[in-house]
């Protein structure tokens, strides 16, 4: 051991050493507080890290450890350590791992190897005459290793600069204050204000299920077939009666008149006894739901309708005087002055009558760097796909 040339064993020992050192650090100085890394500290750290890696790379011929770090002897056990710590997190569900020293040290080691390889392959691109195919392979390697390095390092260091705020806006009351989603809901004044004009929920057509009268459980194979006769998207129960009327005001619920037919051994029954009709409703914050009693065992119900689309119609004002009208939906955020505004939630008690919309506002100044890394990785994966048909000639 530790006799040159080093191989896998030394790397495994370094991995073990990092885990031990990490555990000691964890026990003495405690978990890492990522929020301490906000700008400019993360920028300084990044520059220092890159400089150190660069100097290491330049000295690789003189320091054996560094030359060895760039071999598969070092990389494979390092990757295995990465698998091991991530596996621990996956099996236990401890999110705290992300700020635990052993985990982070292993990942720093992995990224340092990837960084050195990235340096090496980038320089190799510009060195000497090369055949086209090996230049392409080097280029793919640069995309893979440098892309991963950029995405991981910038994503991690930039995390502290990312702001995630939640803003609750009521119709007709422009709002510019938001609560920090990460730091105990600290209220902040923002350089942008949102005015909500309307909030709407589109829903899928109602569905009907059969439930057990006693347990309330869904019965999958109930011998009843349900036909919808009338559907009121907006309805209210008629007082002192079992029926519903169409009613388009705050609090209206969905109700429909259905006919349930009992299937008798494969044939849909026609006799009076096996046919039940009546109203069902999923209810709203104002009206209770209504079930239709079918027999002593089961009832037909309309489960709450599943949302298809949430949308907020807004006007956004920025301090710089910009004014934007937009519709913000899930999967369709609005981008303005470095902020992205996402549809997050609404007043769930009121459901589709909510006059309140909750937005998530995200600012992530490091995002372009992370995205550059991600797109490099994507290109690398595509190139790997198109160039990976090795050794077919042997066959």
């Amino acid at each position, binding site marked *: 051991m530790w006799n040159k040339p080093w191989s896998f064993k030394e790397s495994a020992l370094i991995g073990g050493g990092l885990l031990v050192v990490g555990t000691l650090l964890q026990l003495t100085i405690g978990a890492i507080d990522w929020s301490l890394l906000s700008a400019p500290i993360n920028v300084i750290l990044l520059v220092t890290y890159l400089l150190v890696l660069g100097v290491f790379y330049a000295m690789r011929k003189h320091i054996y450890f560094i030359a060895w770090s760039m071999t598969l002897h070092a990389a*494979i056990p390092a990757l295995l350590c990465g698998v091991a710590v*991530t596996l621990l997190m996956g099996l236990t569900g401890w999110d705290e791992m992300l700020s635990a020293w052993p985990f982070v040290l292993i990942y720093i080691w992995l990224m340092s190897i990837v960084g050195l390889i990235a340096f090496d392959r980038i320089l190799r691109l510009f060195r000497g005459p090369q055949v086209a195919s090996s230049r392409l392979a080097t280029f793919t390697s640069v995309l893979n290793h440098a892309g991963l390095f950029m995405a991981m390092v910038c994503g991690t260091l930039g995390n502290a600069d990312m702001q995630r705020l939640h803003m609750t806006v009521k119709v007709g009351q422009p709002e510019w204050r938001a609560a920090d989603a990460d730091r105990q809901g600290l209220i902040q004044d923002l350089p942008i204000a949102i005015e909500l004009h309307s909030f709407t929920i589109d829903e*899928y057509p109602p569905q009907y299920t059969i439930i057990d009268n006693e347990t309330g459980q869904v019965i999958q194979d109930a011998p009843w077939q349900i036909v919808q006769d009338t559907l009121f998207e907006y309805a209210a129960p008629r007082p002192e009666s079992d029926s519903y009327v169409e009613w388009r005001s705050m609090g209206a619920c969905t109700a429909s008149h259905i006919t349930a037919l009992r299937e008798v051994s494969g044939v849909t029954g026609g006799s009076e006894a096996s046919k039940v009709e009546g109203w069902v409703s999923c209810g709203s914050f104002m009206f209770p739901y209504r079930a239709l009693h079918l027999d002593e065992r089961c009832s037909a119900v309309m489960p709450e309708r599943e949302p298809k689309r949430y949308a907020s119609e807004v006007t956004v004002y920025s301090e710089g005087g910009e004014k934007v009208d937009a519709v913000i939906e899930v999967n369709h955020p609005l981008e303005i002055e470095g902020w992205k505004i996402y549809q997050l939630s609404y007043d769930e008690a009121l459901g589709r009558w909510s006059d309140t919309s909750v937005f*998530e506002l995200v600012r992530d100044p490091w995002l372009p760097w992370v995205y550059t890394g991600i797109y490099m990785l*994507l290109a690398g994966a595509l190139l790997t796909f198109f160039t990976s048909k090795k050794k077919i000639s042997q066959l």
Partner: protein
Amino acid sequence: MTWSHFPYFALPAVLCWIAGAWFSIKERKAQTFAMTALGILIFFAYIIGMWISLDRPPLRTMGETRLWYSFFMPVAGLITWSRWRYRWILSFSTLMALVFVCINLFKPEIHSTTLMPALQSPWFAPHVIVYMFCYALFGAATCVALFLLVKKHTPQEHKTSSPQTLDLIDNLINVGLSFMTIGMLFGALWAKEAWGTYWAWDPKETWAAITWLCYLVYVHARLHRPTPARNRFCLWFLIFSFACLQMCWWGINYLPAAQGKSVHTYNMK
């Protein structure tokens, strides 16, 4: 088109695939291609039918993703066979597809019919389809690895067939890993659009990272000068990696540590 029509498409498709596999063992090229492709077309017709009648891509429930898996298994098999002419690869892919068809026949888990807003994104279909294709390739590679590990009792044969068969596995893994990387990054880009963070280490993402790292181990380990011991390590490691992949795919639905934390367990509602 509903799940009740599934057997009428699945059974003819499977029969075609079995015929294709049989022809490929008999080295009858035209028939192999025709039968396998016909089976793929029949199966794809069902997927399209579901797509149209559901009014959304059938990708949400486990049953629906298994549909794609059974579809991509023979596709991957056929591509591999066309490129490298391994006689038994189609038998493997047919067997895997058959397993998933059977699960869908006997335990379909098909309750949900609607698509919640977060899933209504142009990223959704490519993200899942690319992942399913990669799972199919990794499944095929795992079968071949198992085959090699079991077969090693006959020393002469092992010596001659093993390096080439390992090359086949390498090709499958390289292509599969490219797809996995693409699927994962699509997922990250989509997550950013949908809820503002590209990687949140939720259980599904953690397991996706584990699986990805595992296959990176394999790729790098195979770059190293091969020795019999290393080859055996690689083969065993592939099986371990595939176990992690199962965890990522559906295992976390049953993993106590992941309950109630994942934004990805849509099918559990």
